[in-house]
């Protein structure tokens, strides 16, 4: 059976999707899979919609995930999960932070933020895991651990042993923020 995994990480510029993708990459590499990542830099980092593609498997050529081919969408914000949903493939999974960040057209009142996104997500995708990652990050003692809370939720739903994830945190994060991040990871892990 193919062990290929396609994860699309989506969010708002500045939310830390890139660090999260590095941690997943570490875990899949530790499990002897080859990995490729593709990131958004530049202008979009100024609060625009950003996406990181992560592809892992025995042999990966293209670093990009095309529409209808993602196994997992890991979203840092509700609307972004909804926006990128056409990238998910049948039977795929969505991990979504229930946090709402209004885009400028909504802030200005030009357009409405779609209602009931989480319900609609669950209706369309049975494997939807929504968490209030910001609340859990605060509980972990550092608001900036939102991304690691989400990784905890993801980890619970993937085959890789928990120890790989903790190892990844230890080797990628600076020592001074390790504790809140480990806590954040476990809070996410227990949540789902």
């Amino acid at each position, binding site marked *: 059976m193919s062990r290929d995994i396609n994860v699309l990480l989506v969010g708002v510029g500045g939310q830390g999707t890139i660090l999260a993708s590095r941690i997943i990459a570490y875990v899949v590499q530790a499990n002897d899979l080859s990995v490729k990542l593709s990131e958004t830099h530049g202008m979009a980092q100024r*609060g625009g919609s950003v996406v990181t593609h992560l592809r892992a498997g025995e042999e990966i*050529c*293209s670093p*990009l995930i095309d529409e209808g081919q993602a196994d997992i969408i890991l979203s840092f914000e509700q609307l972004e999960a909804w926006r990128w949903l056409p990238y998910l493939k*049948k039977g795929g999974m969505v991990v979504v932070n229930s946090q709402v960040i209004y885009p*400028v057209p*909504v*802030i200005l009142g030009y357009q409405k933020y779609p209602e009931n996104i989480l319900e609609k997500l669950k209706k369309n995708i049975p494997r939807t895991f929504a968490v209030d990652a910001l609340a859990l990050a605060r509980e972990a003692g550092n608001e900036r651990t939102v991304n690691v809370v989400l990784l905890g939720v993801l980890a619970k739903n993937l085959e890789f042993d928990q120890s790989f994830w903790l190892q990844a945190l230890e080797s990628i994060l600076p020592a001074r923020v390790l504790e809140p991040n480990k806590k954040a990871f476990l809070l996410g892990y227990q949540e789902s």
Partner: protein
Amino acid sequence: MEKVLMSGNEAIARGAYESGVKVASAYPGTPSTEILENVARYEEIYAQWSCNEKVALEVGIGASIAGGRTLVAMKHVGVNVAADPLMTLAYTGVNGGLVLVSADDPGMHSSQNEQDNRRYAKFAKIPLLEPGDSQEAKDFVKRALEISEEFDIPVMLRTTTRVAHSLTPVSLEEPGEVLLKEYIKEPQKYVMIPAYARVRHKLLEEKMSRIKDFNDNNPLNYIQWGDKEIGIVASGISYQYVKEALPEVSSLKLGMPYPFPENLVREFAAGVQKLFVVEELEPFMEEEIRALGLEVTGKEIFSATGEINAEMIRERIGNKTESAPVKLEDYSGEEIPPRPPVMCPGCPHRGVFHTLKKLKLIVTGDIGCYTLGCLPPLEAMDSCICMGASIGAALGMEKANPELKGKIVAVIGDSTFFHSGITGTLDIAYNLGSSTVIILDNRTTAMTGHQDHPGTGKTLKKEESKAADLHRIVNSLGIERVTEADPLNLKEVKEVIAREIESPQSSVIIFQKPCALLEKKDKPLVVDEEECSYCKRCLDIGCPGIMNDWEAEKVQINPDLCSGCSLCQQLCNAGAIRKAGDNLE
């Protein structure tokens, strides 16, 4: 061997280190910026930000003549700026190897155009290498330098956004020893007066024909025979897409697409029933193939605009698909509000654009974070062409239509001013223009991720240097009227602009305030609901920290985003906005 995940840009820097590069220079620009940021980490390499790409290449030329291996990097449009030295560098050739990295941006993720710089390699008559992943990006730097030295010619290494910003595994090697070559005075090689240049041009043509022969047997170009019904020629990232989509077909991968390896291509074409070429943007290889009298399908099925992906190749060449989309209910893409990038909360550019809009001025714009001032609700920009163009364009407008005099301002960032605004300003002074130039001095090159520049007084290697003084530069160009003002004080902004625009002389306003991302946030502001009359004036500045709840007819400030810059407070007639924690009167 150790394999690490690296972006294409990190890998290029590593390649420079492993192949003994002595000097590296660049001007930032997405998707090339991280190359020099990473090179700068290697103590062995002298690395610098130049003011612009032309100077960066000229520094590289000097380094090469002096005998050092050299890397010069820029985004695709940077090569336009550096094109003048490039065209003649092809004639002179090199001493130490010289590789010019051109980072192209198909799809315009972060650019004003999507020009295909492979054409520059052909135009300048220099070899072109195109890596498709980070391993190749690293290895090709070394090959490029070797080819450069072997044939006495600069070499272009062309990446695209998906190579530059994708992380793929790379095996590291230790640097070999590469010695500085001896400097030899050779005016007939390096002084391009017509008499010498005529000789060098002939030599260049001869070299290119030798390189063409070499390229027919170059291991960077190779055939993989598979199903012979279909044969695909590809290079760079497109080759990765081909392998992903149709691993079973025959392929010809060109790691060095120029000069075009004719015999190899003929051999491949003869072995397959139907020949395709998969390339983003221009039909660069397609034209070469057609010139050989071969039949090929390329731009008939792939657009000359935007990017290609594996699924397109699967569908258009392989007649199959791997997409298994979910059938979505209650889903309408149109109802999803777009999320364009925005000026950050606290951005010192915001208030200036708000004022320009209020004053109904014609604004010739420029490139940087401040270009976002063209979007609603600020909508205060009339043109944006390329770096530095704001200033010449303002002068041209007032010369064409004198009625526009006194209504035009040019707006330019500090890094952009040093890049190519100084000559334009000189042009206004010299040619008796009356336009007002506004320099938005946020003390950094913000858009590309906060690089230093001559005005910050710090080099790429973090040495202290003398900070260039904008005020005195402008004075010495011949403009006496120079005003410095605080862009976060709306009253001052308005007064200064209104005054300077009235002046019949040319003038410059310098709005100085560091980029909000580099500053500590102030206490956030709050809206007092009792006092707020919902006049919505505060929404005119388009701050992502202020939310318009139009159902409840309220505005709210998001304390997590607010930087406390107070622009909204200054706009509020009802006095309903105040610092969190301040007592209500």
